[in-house]
């Protein structure tokens, strides 16, 4: 039997990338059931309109978490998106 658990993941830093391009610096962020919300700064608006975008977190041990992003929207300094399955 599969049960759905609601897990919310939060963080203090991250990056939005288009390939190797840095698109935005991410501050406080929240991920819950695929819905992503974050405060961002230093946004490259031209690259933000490109695809595919990824949300990347570099952990203290050097490993990376990376999620493909879709339905990206920016309002002021708040960025929202849907994150897909984490890439290996």
């Amino acid at each position, binding site marked *: 039997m599969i049960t759905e658990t609601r897990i919310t993941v939060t963080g203090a830093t991250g990056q939005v990338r288009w390939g190797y*391009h840095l698109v935005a610096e991410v501050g406080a962020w929240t991920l819950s059931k695929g819905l992503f919300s974050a405060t961002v700064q230093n946004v490259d608006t031209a690259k933000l309109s490109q695809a595919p975008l990824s949300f990347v977190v570099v952990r203290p041990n050097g490993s990376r978490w990376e999620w493909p992003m879709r339905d990206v929207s920016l309002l002021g300094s708040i960025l929202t998106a849907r994150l897909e399955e984490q890439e290996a």
Partner: protein
Amino acid sequence: MSVRVRRPDTARLELSRGDWLIVKKHLTAGETLEMFGLMRQRDSVDSIRFGLSRIIAHLVDWSIQDLDGKVIPITGKPIADVESALRLIDYDTFTEIEKAVDAHMAAMEQERKNERAAETGSSPISLSAA
């Protein structure tokens, strides 16, 4: 109308002793202008910074290790950190990297010429001194 933006594709350049570089295949206009800016010293191109700037502009990742056997981190780092890493390695390695990037840039320039020629249906013209 035509597509004027390139995908951020990368290429792997093999070095000696099993090492490698991951470099950008083609630079954007912004990256090219930034590279030129890094080359400049006051009102002229600094010959010493010329090679350094071309490497910094293209470098995405590498396998170069420090004395502790750890890869010197450069991915996603600010330009100043990448330059610091390049200044840390031994000079023979630096020149090997510079040659690899120079060869890559020449190959990519030829690739772009071939693309333009294909678009116009003509053969790429090679100009040489008589």
